[in-house]
């Protein structure tokens, strides 16, 4: 029989016993919904965890330093040239690293300790440059009050919550307390205000002017280039407060946590003198203390790390933790899938039952069809199509049901998170692949359940079947 005819006859047969077949299909729907609900919970939790971890820069970032840096004793046993012959970590090297497959961006780490004045009061803190890409890939800015930098080199600043408290003269409460100062209230008096950052500019010697330029935003005129000789000039920069963040966008660099964040481009252009005497000099080819290399997929981190090491730099990352995290979620997903499949297993027994009943009811009809020339394959195909159709409809309804349950739980969970002052989170994720696989799985289980009834129907003896009343 042609596909159209098999489908047509199968749909007709299903319509004939619409009540019973609907009940069976609902059974499949509940099974699929439970499977989808369980798996989407697992996937959602995994995505939530990996999103947080990835955005923390722990797992998708490779930190690159030059081996010339003698303080970097950790990498002594690495492959590649000895420290003295290793290349400089400069702009061409940065561009070359950015060309490595899998690398999204490579940017210099700029951080310095300096004085920040707010309402004429001085505060000493660590300032760090934040790449513009952090707007979308660093979730520290997700729940932020205010807005992200308006442009790559805008004279704007984002404050970490503890520094905002310091500026306002609020004493931070103990970390254990979850109901500390509301960040929205904290941000209100600060957003839009201006603060002044005083810093030491490193300029190429001897042309730099010793006078301070209070509104410098760019590199300005720097005279003859000579990287070996430089002057240090005291300058200040007015910065507008655009955001206050609760979380720490800079969590990876444990020891020197910054509390004030500038756009990276602005920080580079300021040529701030940093403690290690190497970075952001005003020469044409600045060399960097370290680069942060962001990799698109955490799986590619080892390959990128290896490629960077081959270039003669030191590189390090934390990848083992993601591996064990993935292993944990694989086990969790496995368990959730088993529990979710139980309902589908029960539903599959329903399919067998429905189709065996259909064989008994349609015994004579099967006999007639065989007498008229239907082959075993025609009869088998018809029962398979009926099972498959129930699986398809049950799968589609089940996925919709599972998705709806997920939305409902997400909604409830986000109300709870909001009350606890946490940013909203998607703990229930139904990706397209899950939708499609759930429907395919539902059809596959239904066909498997239809296997026995279909073969039994096909093997019916037509003479016996025709005698059946």
């Amino acid at each position, binding site marked *: *029989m*042609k596909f*159209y*005819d098999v489908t047509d*006859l199968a749909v*007709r*047969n299903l319509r*004939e016993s619409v009540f019973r077949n609907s009940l069976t299909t609902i059974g499949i729907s509940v099974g699929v919904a439970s499977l989808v609900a369980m798996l989407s919970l697992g996937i959602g939790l995994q995505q939530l965890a990996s999103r947080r971890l990835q955005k923390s820069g722990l797992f998708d970032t490779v930190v690159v330093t030059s081996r010339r840096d003698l303080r970097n004793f950790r990498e002594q046993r690495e492959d590649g040239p000895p420290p003295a012959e290793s290349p400089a970590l400069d702009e061409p090297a940065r561009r070359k690293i950015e060309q490595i497959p899998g690398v999204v961006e490579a940017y210099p780490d700029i951080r310095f300790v300096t004085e920040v004045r707010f309402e004429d009061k001085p505060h000493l803190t660590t300032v760090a440059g934040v790449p513009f890409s952090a707007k979308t890939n660093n979730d520290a800015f997700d729940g932020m009050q205010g807005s992200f930098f308006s442009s790559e080199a805008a004279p704007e600043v984002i404050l970490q919550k503890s520094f905002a408290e310091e500026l306002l003269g609020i004493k931070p409460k103990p970390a254990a307390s979850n109901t500390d100062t509301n960040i929205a209230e904290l941000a209100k008096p600060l957003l839009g205000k201006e603060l002044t950052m005083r810093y030491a500019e490193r300029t190429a010697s001897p042309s730099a002017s010793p006078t301070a330029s209070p509104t410098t935003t760019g590199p300005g005129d720097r005279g003859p280039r000579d990287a070996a000789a430089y002057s240090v000039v005291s300058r200040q920069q007015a910065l507008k407060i655009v955001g206050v963040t609760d979380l720490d966008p800079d969590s990876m660099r444990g020891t020197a946590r910054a509390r004030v964040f500038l756009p990276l481009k602005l920080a580079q252009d300021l040529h701030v003198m940093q403690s290690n005497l190497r970075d952001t000099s005003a020469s044409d080819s600045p060399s960097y203390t370290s680069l942060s290399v962001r990799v698109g997929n955490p799986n590619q981190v080892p390959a990128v790390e290896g490629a960077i090491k081959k270039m003669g730099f030191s590189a390090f990352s934390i990848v083992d933790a993601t591996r064990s995290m993935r292993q944990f979620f694989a086990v969790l997903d496995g368990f959730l899938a088993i529990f979710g499949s139980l309902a589908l297993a029960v539903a599959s027994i329903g399919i067998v039952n429905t189709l065996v009943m259909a064989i008994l009811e349609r015994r*004579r*009809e099967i006999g*007639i*069809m*065989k*007498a*008229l*020339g*239907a*082959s*075993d*394959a*025609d009869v088998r195909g018809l029962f398979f199509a009926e099972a498959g159709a129930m699986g398809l409809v049950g799968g589609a309804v089940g996925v919709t049901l599972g998705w709806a349950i997920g939305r409902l739980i997400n909604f409830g969970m986000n109300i709870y998170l909001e009350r606890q002052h946490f940013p909203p989170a998607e703990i229930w994720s139904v990706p397209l692949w899950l939708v499609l696989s759930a429907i395919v799985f539902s059809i596959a289980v239904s066909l498997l359940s239809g296997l026995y009834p279909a073969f039994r129907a096909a093997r019916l003896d*037509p*003479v016996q079947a*025709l005698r059946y009343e």
Partner: protein
Amino acid sequence: MPNALAVRTENLCRHYQMGEALVRAVDGISIDIAAGEFVALLGASGSGKSSLLNLVAGLDRPTSGAVIVQGNNLAALSREQLAKYRLHTVGMVFQSFNLIPSMSLLENVELPMRFAEVDRRERSALAHQLLERVGLSGRLAHRPTELSGGEQQRAALARALINRPKLLLADEPTGNLDSRTGTEIMELLHSFNQSLGMTVLMVTHEQALAEKYAGRMLHLADGRLVEDVTNNDVTNNYATNISSVNAPASRGETP
């Protein structure tokens, strides 16, 4: 009588084991039926008429012996080949009509063509044509339960003919009809036999009907062929015996 051989059985046996007893439903029957013949199988209940018909229809397999139709020994065919044989070579009409109740008349008639994978438009045209020929063109969308017995049997006849079979097998086609309707069906069978040159093998226990329409009568008893009578005077018998047809009115006709 045409000369080409349509059906040959050679020492055909079909035995069943029923508990301890061995039932010899068909017990060593050897017959030759020429193409275009109208043959009636007669005998009392349990004489083996329907069993023999099922063997010729390829619905059952012989215990021993051979059934050769169109040069093919059915006993040697696979299940798949037998299905193809039933689809293309044989058309069947049953006592209880055996139309599928969930389908309309048109769909019932089209059904064998679905198995033959005939294009939708072509099969619909052919089904319309055949239903018109059996006088049911106004009943295409009706379901079998909405029709009288005679109408159902006419639809069943149209369905049996849709794949243009060489051999029409009828198992007591008038058994559930009153005499007038039975005669109508027999007229149709006779006309198809005459106009299409189709071989007809009909099981009946109504001697009068057989004498009127069949050119040959095979009498069975206890699974054996006891008499093979050639009715040379079918046309004369048809004229003289028309009033003597005594069909049981086991199923009332709805007007």
